[in-house]
């Protein structure tokens, strides 16, 4: 084909021209992106904070103030308010007394990881509330885990007591099929959303099995009263 063509194609612009124009566009693009990050950063951080606080107050009905903590094998440390690596949120009531603790759990759901936040009462040794933080479950089916009142009834007083020496959860939390709940540590699943209800149960079980014994061990570092 090219052999038959009497006229050579006109020479294109040099590589330098191409590099310069692409570089120019990339620079404009960078400028726009940095600008939008600058403009939205505070608002996004604020939104995330509000969403988390809303979730904490939803799972700890008596709480009006929150203090962040980090709990791991090395101990329990109180964190400043703006910290982002907290994994334990202590809720205090209006009088400043400890109303409960909120912790996160996550497990694989039907579409993606389901992340939940649950409230735990030290006095009752039980879970007193649950809310879904992140889920992309099927609308109308799996997403009922966020808003089905019957399912949420499971988490009003879900037994999570420890063994005598506090080294493990006495009866690990488990999701059972809809209508098959017999024990206070079982979660009655949603019919039609078995995978998602099981994921919620698995997330809470994994989190309670790991965090509650640690909490028992380091409970001394927890502030009982904010204004003694």
């Amino acid at each position: 084909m090219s052999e038959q063509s009497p006229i050579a194609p006109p020479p294109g612009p040099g590589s330098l021209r191409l590099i310069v124009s692409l570089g120019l566009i990339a620079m404009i693009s960078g400028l726009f992106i940095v600008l939008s990050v600058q403009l939205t950063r505070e608002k996004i951080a604020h939104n995330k904070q509000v969403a988390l606080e809303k979730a904490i107050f939803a799972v700890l009905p008596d709480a009006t103030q929150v203090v962040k903590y980090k709990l791991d094998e090395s101990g329990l440390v109180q964190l400043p308010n703006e910290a982002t690596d907290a994994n334990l949120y202590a809720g205090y009531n209006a009088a400043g007394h400890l109303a409960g603790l909120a912790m996160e759990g996550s497990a694989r759901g039907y579409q993606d990881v389901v992340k939940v936040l649950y409230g735990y009462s030290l006095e009752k040794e039980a879970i007193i509330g649950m809310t879904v933080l992140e889920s992309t479950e099927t609308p109308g089916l799996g997403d009922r885990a966020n808003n089905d009142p019957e399912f949420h009834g499971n988490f009003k007083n879900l037994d999570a007591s420890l063994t005598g020496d506090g080294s493990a959860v006495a009866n690990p939390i488990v999701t059972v099929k809809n209508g098959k709940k017999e024990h206070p540590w079982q979660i009655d699943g949603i019919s039609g959303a078995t995978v998602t209800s099981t994921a919620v149960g698995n997330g809470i079980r994994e989190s309670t099995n790991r965090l509650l014994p640690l909490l028992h061990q380091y409970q001394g570092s927890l502030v009982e009263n904010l204004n003694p």
Partner: protein
Amino acid sequence: MVKDPRLPDPLSWQTFTTGLWKENPVFVMLLGLCPTLAVTNSAINALSMGLATTFVLVCSGVLVSLLRKVIPKQVRIASYIIIIATFVTMADYAIQAISLDIYKALGAFIQLIVVNCIILGRAEAYASKNPVSNAFINALGMGVGFTFALLCLGMVREVLGMGSLFGVHLFGPAFQPWAVFVLPPGGFFVLAFWLWLFAVARKRTARAQPATKEVADAA
């Protein structure tokens, strides 16, 4: 008369309305079906997705049109993609700042606006050949047409699948939602229904037009 496609398009009411009706991206060109099917399970998701896409369409159209004499032909696709990706990133941050709930509902589909062929198609076929004002109006028309199409699907699917519209419950607690409509198959059913409706409507207008012309000629 066939217009030379290299000539700029004269600015007219048509520039805006092609995207709404004659070349509606979803109902006529069947472009961007991935977000069309995936995020139209509720009216609010459909509206947010439509607005985000319109924003990217309009901004990238304007910038491509502004730079159309600067961008060498050999690297134009790469340039368009950088420009589109920039505005998608901006839309992503803006939605996070406006509402985290909507951001969570739309999931990965905001980032996937980058690969929406409506936008690259407009940049290549229209904005790179026309002045800024035309590119702006045309992209706006396409965006509104896309948003309209998404709303058509989203509203039907939400009403049938959840018994609500924009989150407001319509039928009371006795209503048994028709869950299949918020699931993927429901997206296909509703899309097929709208495509059929549009095809019938287009056929009718096509049949009616020559008749009116004859009448006008006779007069």
